[in-house]
């Protein structure tokens, strides 16, 4: 198989490369979410809405800011319209000012005088932006510009046997071409004894171990052990017995590279190589913060079949379970079952998956995009105030 090392992307002035060219209409706070959504729907943009942005403290507030800044700075974003209310903690003007290299504007519902006026003004701004960015052409770019988020959810034993190992081959191929891969912690509880040994430095190893120790501490403070929730009932029904077994199956999706760094949720990937990001919570928060870290696309492995996508990045669905693939063909992009039947090797299927990733990078739509799956969520730290 011919291994490609280029793809067609949208070059940004800061050197990053997008694989999509979206106008993002971003709400700063839950209160402006509906207005942002209506502007995006009318003007051909994609809305980034969420439930945060006010009544937050300390690290929790910083995390929300970091994730929103990460999203608007993601290279798949060609232009940004920030929609605020006017009295919230996340200021529309400040968020807009973090965008340096592309068309950007902000509006506030208070200043415009209510919902209808804000929507009309927003549509007028947005349609000009869409017109501008639609003229940009794709150019041939090095795959070293790609940051791939790898994720698993709704896992069953085929995830660990086929889908994740095949994705691991693709991860290694990308890293071998100086690209980057970011893998979330949420599926890795129970493999830290192995991951820590793969860290490039003792400091990175300590961060990995502390992340899992902090999770244990926080769940105990709630009067529970996180082992109560993991493996999930669905994992156990399909034959995953322990958290360690689940994690060992999950960790293979990142490949075999040394671990270049540990990131907080939404922190930017800055160099090639394999990165671990703290991604507590469910599947949607996980892929959202990985995209905020700069990932232009996500490969999401699933044994049971999972439909979620992102407004800002393709989420490619890969399964190792052939009956799931047939049943949920509307949602699933790639089947690795040939590994289980031993008709192909992990390496062969992984190389095919790598080419599929580059086809999607070139502009081919994945199923989640075709079906309009545009979930997005920002995780919380601590309790609400």
């Amino acid at each position, binding site marked *: 198989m011919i291994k490609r090392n280029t793809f067609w992307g949208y070059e940004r002035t800061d050197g990053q490369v997008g694989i999509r060219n979206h106008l993002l209409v971003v709400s700063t706070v839950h209160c402006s979410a509906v207005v942002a959504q209506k502007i995006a729907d009318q003007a051909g943009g994609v809305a980034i809405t969420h439930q945060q942005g006010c009544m937050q403290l300390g690290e929790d507030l910083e995390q929300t800011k970091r994730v929103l800044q990460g999203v608007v700075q993601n290279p798949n974003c060609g232009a940004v319209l920030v929609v605020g209310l006017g009295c919230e903690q996340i200021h529309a003007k400040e968020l807009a000012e973090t965008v340096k290299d592309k068309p950007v504007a902000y509006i506030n519902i208070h200043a415009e005088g209510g919902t209808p006026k804000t929507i009309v003004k927003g549509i007028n701004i947005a349609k000009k932006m869409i017109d501008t960015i639609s003229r940009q052409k794709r150019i041939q770019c090095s795959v070293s510009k790609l940051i791939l988020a790898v994720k698993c959810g709704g896992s*069953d*034993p*085929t995830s*660990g*046997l086929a889908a994740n*190992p095949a994705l691991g081959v693709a991860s290694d191929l990308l890293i071998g071409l100086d690209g980057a891969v970011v893998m979330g912690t949420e599926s890795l*509880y*129970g493999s*830290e*004894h*192995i991951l*820590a*040994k793969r860290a490039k430095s*003792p400091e990175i*190893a*300590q961060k990995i*171990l*502390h992340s*899992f*120790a902090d999770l*244990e*501490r926080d769940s105990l403070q709630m009067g529970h052990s996180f*082992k109560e929730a993991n493996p999930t009932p669905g994992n*156990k029904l*399909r*034959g995953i*017995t*322990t*958290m*360690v*077994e689940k994690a*060992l*199956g999950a960790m293979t999706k990142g490949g075999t590279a040394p671990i270049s760094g540990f990131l907080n949720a939404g922190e930017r990937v800055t160099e090639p190589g394999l990165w671990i990001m703290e991604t507590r919570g469910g599947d949607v928060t996980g892929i959202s913060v990985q995209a905020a870290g700069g990932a232009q696309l996500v490969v999401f492995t699933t*044994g049971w079949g999972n439909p979620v996508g992102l407004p800002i990045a393709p989420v490619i669905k890969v399964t190792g379970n052939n009956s799931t693939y047939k049943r949920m063909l509307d949602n699933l992009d790639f089947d690795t079952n040939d*590994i*289980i*039947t*031993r008709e192909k*090797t*992990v390496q062969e299927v992984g190389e095919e998956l790598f080419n599929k990733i580059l086809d999607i990078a070139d502009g081919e739509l994945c199923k989640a995009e075709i079906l309009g799956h545009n979930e997005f969520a920002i995780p919380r730290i601590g309790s609400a105030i």
Partner: protein
Amino acid sequence: MCEKEYQSSSLITGERNILVLSPKDNTATVVGASLKAGDSFRFDGLIVKAMKNIPFGHKVALCNIQAGEYIYKYGEIIGKATETIYPGDHVHTHNVEDVVDELRHQISSPNSRSDKFKE
């Protein structure tokens, strides 16, 4: 680990309806059709007979595993037997406990921020 070190030349060995991922493993994963009680499969010269119905994706024991001994899959420890497990047994939550704390404590004290990391 089984006393006998199985030879494997590739990641995946075993018969078509079971997968053994590493020569260190004392379990195999059922793939293709589920195993029915009484079904037997040949593995590395031995005949293993399923003692219960074992669904697709679940694990079957390849050898005797005493209570307290480790369960291996992927060539790694994934749990510990809570009772004696016989060849052909279903290996799952009813006879296996997690070892996440034990494995973590092998390399680090989770309550300490001091540098206890060792290669």
